[in-house]
Structures are given as C-alpha cells and as structure tokens.
C-alpha cells in the first residue's frame, strides 16, 4: 500500500457510496507524478485544449508563442488571415523557431542555419539545399509541423494533438452556448486586451477547477471581498443558485447573488454616470436578443469550465483563464480580460478596475483562492502513504442527498466537482479508478436548457 501510495497505481481514485451518500477523491490524484504523466498522455494529448482567442492575433501575420501541454507553439494568423498553430521547433534540428514572445511577421527564420518558413508553414528557404537529395521533396517534408487539429467557436481557438478527436462543437456540447452568450453581451462583439496576467500556483490544476466550481467556499474564503461589496451597497447571497454539469467534464456555476455585471446591472459602486449607460445598453440588448435571452445573458453571472483547461468568468467583468499544468504540484495560469470591442472609455476604465479588483494575483479575491489551492497541496502531504488508507481521501459529498433524488444541485453543493471527477477518471483511464458502493442512480442530471 505505501508503494502503491507512491504512485497511486491500481488504487481507486474515486469512491462513491450510495448508501452513506459519500463521494471521496483519492489525494494521490493531486500528488502523484505518475498520474500527472497519465493525464498528459490521456487527456492533454488527446482532448481539445483551449489555445487562445482570435482577437489576440487580430491582424494577418500577428503571432504569439505559447506553451500548451508543455509544448512550445506558435499561435498565428497567416498572411491570408487564417489562424494557425505550429510547433515552435525547427524541422531541421529542433531549435525554437520563433524566440520572440509576440509580434508580426510573414516569415519565421531559424537563427541556427537560417532555414526560413512562411507563416502558412511552407518552406521559404533552405540555404545550400543542393546538399540534399531531391530539394522539392525536402521542402515538402520540412514544412512547419502543425498541431493536428484546430477549430474555433465564437473566437475561442481550440487545438488538439489528437488528429482523431471529434469535432469541437460536439466536444463543447452545452458549454458552447454560454460562450455565445458572452459574445452576445455587446453588439460589437468582444475582444481580449493586452495586459495578460501570467502567474503560477504551487498546486495541482484540478484544485483550480474545483475551486472555480465551488460556491461553498465563497463567503468564508472571500469574507473580505464580500465585505467590500456589502459596504458598496451590494448584498451578496448564495441562495437559489445552482451548479450544472454540462457533460464531457464541462460544468457551470450560475450566480445571481454576486453582482459585478457591468453595463448590465447597475450598482452604486459603479457611479451615477454608469447608471444611464447601463440602462441604454440593457434596452439595446432586449431589442437585439429578446426579453428572455437578454435576461439569461445579462442578469446571471456565469462561471464556465470547459474541460480540461479553460475557465470563463462572466462575473465582476469578463475574464478568460487558461490552466497549464507544469507538474503534479504546479500549474501555470494565464488570464485575459475580455471587453466589448466598442465601449465608452469611462465604462472601460470602470470595467478594468473592477475586474482586476476581483481576479488575478493582485486582486482582493483571487489571492485567497490561490492560498486555498496551495494550502490543500501542502495539507494533503499529511496523509501520503497513510496506513489508514481511507484518510487519504477528500470529501465531496455535499448535495448527494439531492443528487440521489435527481434534484438539481446548488452552487454551494459539490455536484459540479463530482461530475468533473467522474469524467476525469474515465478520461485518464485508471484501471479500477472508480469504486461504487451501494446502488448508483441510473443517471445524473446533465445540462440546462436556456434556449
């Protein structure tokens, strides 16, 4: 068992008990480097992954380099305007081809031997190619290496290292519409901005997923932020709010008691001028989207998780968060602010101030979440290789009393986490990873219809 404990091989990762109504997650899932390797192979190299947003490379020839699943990539728009994802590694001897982090260029030239490539992947030049047999075949075989699959939904660019992955929309399923809702907030559509939050947490990536789907932590963990909102005339509540499993590991928190819906629901802290702009914008939305759709788009805050590496925060502004696991115990995080392409400068300034006051390592809330991931990662060392094996499990049973009855789980329950873990264990493919005691319900609630 300690040996087993060392890599978690062959142990149940999840234990569901439908008699006791408990759901337990093996803490080895956060600690084990062997499980990290399996996740890399069976999830990150198989699944769709969020790469970036179209608006980051708005113009032809724009490029950004970005590491995804540990692989250095070039995310660019070629000269013809097509969005591309190339391995950032020279086909000749593997040198990082593009060493700039961002810029605009028609060509990528490797500095080592000056092989040069067009941003559509074609070989532009190989010095002295007479040294090779069949220089035509050479140019064919030495094109830039593409990430096998790339598809886009509402400006969100996804890639997969698995050529056989099903179509993106099939993968996104019910999650797709919540991305559409964000795009519908403003008639001009949305764009990312410069000023990307790059940080890294000493915690397993799944702790960041749980935290985002966990309404139960909000008032204790963010006590000071709740206080700040309260003093500014907004009474936060957790009542009548729900967490949904959207299938394929995706999930959704719908929050109606947390505010921060700039240009959709006015709050005193936004100031008087903003009040009129908000009213006007709501009017425009209703005309454009109709009463009910406008309601869903405007009046609810959403936290959407798209398995495995994308979190969308449609609350206190709009931010995109990407998770890049580095090791079992470390995760790089990247966050972009998403704003209406066209917006009143005062609203924009208010939006930027507001979103940053909440999210990111310098905000008034996110640091407490980071403290949580890191305190969990440290804390679970207490039961590593524990003889009393059952103590090395974390509890996520909240709301199983409803779940077993088929009642929709609340935001302050742990149902969204259970959905995530159930998907995770099958995706990672750990033998006997799931143990079910007692009689499991025939099915679980999935999705939510807002159309």
């Amino acid at each position: 068992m300690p040996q087993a404990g060392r890599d978690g091989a062959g142990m149940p990762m999840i234990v569901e008990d439908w008699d006791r109504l408990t759901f337990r997650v093996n803490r080895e899932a956060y600690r084990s480097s062997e499980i990290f390797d399996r996740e890399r192979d069976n999830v990150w190299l198989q699944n769709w992954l969020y790469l970036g947003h179209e608006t980051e490379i708005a113009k032809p020839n724009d490029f950004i380099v970005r590491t995804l699943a540990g692989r250095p990539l070039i995310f660019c728009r070629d000269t013809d305007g097509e969005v591309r994802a190339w391995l950032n590694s020279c086909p000749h001897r593997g040198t990082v081809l593009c060493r700039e982090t961002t810029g605009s260029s028609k060509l990528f030239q490797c500095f080592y031997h000056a092989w040069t490539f067009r941003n559509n992947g074609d070989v532009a030049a190989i010095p002295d190619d007479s040294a090779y047999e069949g220089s035509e075949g050479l140019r064919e075989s030495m094109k830039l290496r593409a990430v096998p699959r790339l598809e886009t939904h509402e400006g969100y660019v996804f890639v997969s290292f698995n050529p056989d992955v099903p179509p993106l929309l099939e993968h996104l399923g019910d999650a797709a519409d919540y991305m559409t809702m964000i795009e519908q907030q403003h008639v001009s559509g949305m764009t990312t901005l410069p000023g990307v939050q790059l940080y890294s947490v000493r915690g397993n990536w799944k702790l960041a997923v749980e935290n985002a789907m966990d309404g139960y932590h909000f008032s204790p963990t963010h006590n000071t932020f709740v206080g700040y909102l309260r003093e500014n005339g907004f009474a936060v509540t957790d009542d009548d709010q729900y967490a949904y499993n959207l299938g394929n590991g995706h999930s959704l928190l719908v929050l109606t008691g947390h505010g921060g819906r700039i240009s959709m629901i006015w709050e005193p802290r936004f100031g008087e001028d903003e009040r009129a702009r908000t009213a006007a914008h709501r009017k425009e939305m209703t005309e454009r989207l109709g009463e009910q759709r406008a309601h869903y788009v405007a009046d609810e805050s959403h936290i959407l998780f798209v398995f495995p590496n994308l979190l969308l925060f449609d609350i206190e502004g709009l931010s995109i968060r990407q998770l890049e696991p580095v090791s079992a115990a470390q995760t790089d995080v990247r966050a972009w602010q998403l704003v209406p392409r066209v917006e009143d400068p005062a609203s924009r300034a208010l939006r930027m101030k507001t979103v940053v006051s909440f999210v990111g390592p310098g905000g008034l809330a996110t640091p407490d979440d980071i403290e949580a991931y890191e305190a969990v990662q440290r804390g679970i060392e207490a039961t590593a290789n524990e003889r009393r094996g059952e103590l090395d499990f974390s509890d996520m049973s909240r709301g199983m009393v409803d779940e077993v009855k088929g009642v929709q789980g609340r935001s302050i329950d742990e149902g969204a986490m259970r959905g995530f873990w159930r998907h995770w264990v099958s995706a990672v493919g750990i033998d006997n990873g799931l143990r079910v005691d007692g009689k499991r319900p025939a099915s679980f609630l999935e999705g939510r219809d807002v159309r």
Partner: protein
Amino acid sequence: MTAVGEYGVVTVAGHALSRAQVEDFLYEEADILDAWRYDDWLALFAQGARYEIPTTDYAGWSLHESGSFVDDDYDLLLARVKRLKSRKAHAENPHSRTHRLISNVRAFAHEDKLRVTASFVVHRARDGQFDTYVGRYEHLLLPTDDGLRFWLRRSILTHEALPAGARLSFIL
C-alpha cells in the same frame, strides 16, 4: 561641475529636494510595510492617489485600457488596506515576512511632481517558501510642507511571469 553643497538638488513647486530625502521616504515606507503598519502606510498617500502594478507584458499602455495586476484608485486603495488589516485576508494571514532592498534611486522634476525611479527586490518568506520579487519603481511624488506623498505608486516587475507561489496579496 556643481559644488557639492547643492549637488543633486531638484526644485519642485518651490520645494528643494535631494535624493537623500527621497531615499529616506522610500526607506521609511519599506519599514512601515515590513512592520505591517497599514494605517501609517496609507498616510504616505495624497488624497486621490493611485497604486498600480502592470502585468509582466507591460509595454507602457494605460491601465484603464488594459489588463493589469493592480489598478487601484484611491477608493480601492482604501478597500485594499482595510482588507489587509482584517484577520480574514487569508492570503496574508498569517502575514508574509517581507524584506525590501531599494536601490538605484533617481529623482526628476515632473511638472509639479517629483518623478522617482528605483530598483527594488522584495523577499517574501511564508509557508516554508522564500520568494523574490524583482522590479522597478516608477512613482510620482507630491512634495508637501509635511514631506513627500505618493501621487502615483507604481511597481513594475522585471519577471516574465509571476513565479510559482508568487502573488501580490501584500504590497509590492
């Protein structure tokens, strides 16, 4: 070459200021922050002052038009201080142990303000980790009859990204 007596004195809005005075101001702030004396820290700001930390990809843009780490107007600054003084600011309770080195201090007249640049290294010990934050101050200081006050307090990180475990839950 000027005589030493007046060497390096900058006159702003009728106040003659030496580098030594600016250094003393920054050193005092550093001690206040390391001692977690947040009311005293707030007193170093002029009414309406701002506190900014751009992201690590910063290229000179306005924080009103871009993402950032910290974009505090005076109201948010008050909220931040209130939070830090609360026992419920979990990210800083227990408090980080911080230690500050401020060097390469330079001061320039900038309209009615003093533009101050400096290099900083902030060390932070917590939870068995020892983190280092490296960057540059680009402040605007307001000379008053009671001494200098922050008008814009801006910390610009040298890092390409915040390293693992680093966070800006304390004052950088």
